[in-house]
C-alpha cells in the first residue's frame, strides 16, 4: 500500500468531548456596574450602615483636602489624592473584620486610616521620615506599596498561609486600573484561584494611570471580565455608590470566608484630582470630563439618598462636617511639628544584627555628625 492509499483510508478519531473546567457564566460580571443608591435596592439598605458610610466619606474627603494642603506647605513630599474615590476607600476598610488584612497601594492612605491606623503614621511614607510609619501587625495593614501590583501576591500568600493554619482570615488587596497590566496582577490572580485563597481583589478603576486612559491600558470588555480567565467571579460595581461598593465587597469577603475562593471586584470611579500634587492633569484630560464626574460625587449620592429617606437633616450633616474638621485640625497640628529624626536610624533595621560594614559606617556617620555639631553648635533642623 502506498502512503497515499494509507492516507485515504485514514479516519481521524474525534477528540474526547471537551468540558470547560468551570462554567464561565456565573463568573461573568453583570453588564452594568451594580448600584444601590437611587435604585429599588436602596430601600433595603441598613440605615445605620448608610449613616456610618456618610460620616466616614465626609471625613475622608476632608482628609484628602488636608493632606493635599500639607503638600503645598511642604509638609508632605507628595500626596496622591483619592478625592472622588472615597466610597471605595472607606468600604474597603469597613467590610473587614478585625482579624482580616488590608493590602493597600500607595494611593490608599484613606483606607488605611479608615481601618484605624493613626493618620499621622499613615502619612509617614509620604512625609518622608520613614518608609512605613505604622506597625503592620497592629491593625493588620500591609505597608503602603509603591511598586504597582507587587502587593497582590503578598495578599494571596498571607491569605493562603492563614487558611493552611486554619485561621479565619480574609485579605483584601487594592490595586489601580493601570496596575492590572503588571505581570504580578496576573500571577496573583492565578495563584489565588488555583489555591482557592480567601482573597478579594479590589480594582479602583479611576480612569487613568497617571496620564494613560483605560482604553490604552486594556482591550478587555471590563477589568472585572479578567476574572473569568482565572476561574474566579468578577463583579462590576459603581465605585461612587458607597452602599453598592460595601455590599459587593461584603459579599466577596463572605464568599472568601466561607471557602469559596477569591473574587475580583472592579469599582468604576474617577480620579477628580491630578495623579499627585506634582502632576499636571490638563495635559491629558479636559475639564468637561471632570465636571460630569463631579456630578456623580459619592458624598452627594449618599446625601441625596439619606435625605430622601429622612435619615439625614442639616444637623446631621453639620455633625459629620464638625467631626471631619476636628480630625483635620488634629492632623494639621501633628503634621506641622517637625518629626524627631535621628540620622543614626539609617542603620537601624537593615538586618536583625548589623553587619560589620554597617557598624563601621554607623561610626563614620556618628563622627561626622559630632564634627559638624562642633563647628555649628546651635545645631540645625533635619528638614
Amino acid at each position, binding site marked *: 500500500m502506498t502512503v497515499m492509499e494509507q492516507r485515504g483510508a485514514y479516519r481521524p478519531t474525534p477528540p474526547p468531548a471537551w468540558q470547560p473546567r468551570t462554567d464561565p457564566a456565573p463568573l461573568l460580571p453583570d453588564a452594568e456596574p451594580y448600584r444601590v443608591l437611587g435604585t429599588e435596592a436602596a430601600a433595603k439598605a441598613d440605615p445605620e450602615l448608610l449613616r456610618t458610610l456618610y460620616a466616614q466619606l465626609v471625613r475622608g474627603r476632608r482628609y484628602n483636602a488636608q493632606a493635599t494642603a500639607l503638600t503645598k506647605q511642604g509638609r508632605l513630599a507628595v500626596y496622591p489624592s483619592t478625592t472622588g474615590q472615597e466610597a471605595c476607600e472607606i468600604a474597603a476598610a469597613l467590610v473587614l473584620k478585625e482579624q482580616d488584612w488590608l493590602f493597600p497601594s500607595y494611593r490608599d492612605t484613606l483606607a488605611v486610616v479608615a481601618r484605624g491606623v493613626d493618620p499621622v503614621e499613615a502619612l509617614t*511614607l509620604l512625609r518622608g*521620615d520613614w*518608609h512605613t510609619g505604622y506597625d503592620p501587625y497592629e491593625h493588620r495593614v500591609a505597608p503602603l506599596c509603591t511598586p504597582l501590583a507587587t502587593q497582590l501576591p503578598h495578599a494571596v500568600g498571607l491569605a493562603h498561609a492563614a487558611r493552611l493554619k486554619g485561621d479565619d482570615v480574609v485579605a483584601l488587596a487594592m490595586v489601580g486600573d493601570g496596575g492590572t497590566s503588571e505581570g504580578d496582577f496576573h500571577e496573583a490572580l492565578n495563584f489565588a484561584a488555583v489555591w482557592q485563597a480567601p482573597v478579594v481583589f479590589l480594582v479602583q478603576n479611576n480612569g487613568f494611570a497617571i496620564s*494613560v486612559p483605560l482604553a490604552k*491600558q486594556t482591550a478587555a470588555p471590563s477589568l472585572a471580565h479578567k476574572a473569568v480567565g482565572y476561574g474566579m467571579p468578577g463583579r462590576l460595581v459603581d465605585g461612587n455608590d458607597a452602599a453598592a461598593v460595601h455590599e459587593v465587597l461584603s459579599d466577596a469577603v463572605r464568599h472568601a470566608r466561607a471557602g469559596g475562593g477569591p473574587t475580583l471586584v472592579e469599582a468604576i470611579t474617577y480620579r477628580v484630582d491630578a495623579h499627585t500634587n506634582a502632576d499636571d492633569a490638563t495635559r*491629558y484630560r479636559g475639564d468637561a470630563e471632570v465636571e460630569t464626574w463631579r456630578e456623580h460625587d459619592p458624598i452627594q449620592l449618599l446625601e441625596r439618598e439619606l435625605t430622601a429617606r429622612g435619615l439625614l437633616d442639616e444637623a446631621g450633616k453639620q455633625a459629620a462636617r464638625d467631626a471631619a474638621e476636628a480630625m483635620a485640625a488634629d492632623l494639621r497640628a501633628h503634621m506641622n511639628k517637625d518629626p524627631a529624626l535621628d540620622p543614626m*536610624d539609617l542603620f537601624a533595621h*537593615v538586618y536583625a544584627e548589623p553587619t560589620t560594614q554597617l557598624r563601621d559606617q554607623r561610626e563614620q556617620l556618628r563622627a*561626622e555628625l559630632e564634627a559638624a555639631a562642633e563647628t555649628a553648635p546651635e545645631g540645625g533642623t533635619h528638614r
Partner: protein
Amino acid sequence: MTTVAVKPATMAQALTRALRDAMAADPAVHVMGEDVGTLGGVFRVTDGLAKEFGEDRCTDTPLAEAGILGTAVGMAMYGLRPVVEMQFDAFAYPAFEQLISHVSRMRNRTRGRMPLPITIRVPYGGGIGGVEHHSDSSEAYYMATPGLHVVTPATVADAYGLLRAAIASDDPVVFLEPKRLYWSKDSWNPEEPVPVEPIGRAVVRRSGRSATLITYGPSVPVCMEAAEAARAEGWDLEVVDLRSLVPFDDETVCASVRRTGRAVVVHESGSFGGPGGEIAARVTERCFHYLEAPVLRVAGFDVPYPPPMLERHHLPGVDRILDAVGRLQWEAES
C-alpha cells in the same frame, strides 16, 4: 568662522533633542514606555515626540515593565530600534527577567545573528526628595550583567551625545539618567550638538596633580565642588567623569592615577559589592607601582535607600570626599 549662539539648556532638554534627532534620522527608532506619549513622560523628556512622530513611534504602553522590555526585544528582532523608558529606577525591576535572561545575551546565544539594539532609559539616583522606590542607584546590577553597555551622562552636552550614541549602538545600552541633574543647565549649542562620542570613553573634567576623583553621573558636580574646596587645603584634584561604566575606560582612568598617584572613587550607590570595588581593583591591578595610597571609596551607605528626610546623611557630599582626600596622606603618616 561663524559663531553660533550658545544657549543654556537643561539636561532634560538635551535628552529630548537627542531622541527627536534620532527619530528624525532613522525611522526604525521607536520610543515607548509609561506616560511617554500625551504627557511627555513624568520628567517631560519625551515631550512633543508623539505629536511630531505619531503614537506609533512614541507609544504610551500598558503599565508593565516586563511587557515593555519584552515587546522591545521582539521589535528589535524585527529590525526596529526601540528606546524604552523605565519611569523610575526601582520600577525597572519587574523588567529584570527580560533584561538579564534575554536582552543582555541574545547576541551571544545566537552566535551574533540576533543583536538587540535597544536603549533602556532609566532615571536613577537620589537627591530629589523622592519617596520610597524613587531614588535607587541600580548601576551595580546592570554592570554585573555581561552583554549590556551601561552609560550615564553628567553634563548637558554628554546627555545629548551619549544618548545619540546609545541609540546608534547595535548592542543594548542601559542609559542611566541622573534625575537630580535633569534641571541642571549648561551652555550648549543645540544647533550644532557635540560630535557623538563613542561609548566607552571617560573624560577628565578638571585636571590636577595631587589625586584623582573617579566618578560619574550625579556625583560629578559634587566632585567638582569638592575639588574647588580642596584647593584651600592645598590639594589640586583631578576629576575623571567615567561617562561609561561598561565598557570601562581603563586608559583614561589609569593615565590620570599614574599622574597623581592617589585616587578616590565616588558614587551614590552602596560601596559593598558596588561599582567602586570593581574600579578600585582595576586601578590597583594596573597602577600598583604608581600608587602612594590605597584607592579609597566614598559611597552611599549599605542601607536600603533612605526616606527623603534622611537622604542628605546618606549621599556622598563634599565633606565626605574631602575627608577621604585627607586620608590619602596615610603613607606620609605611617
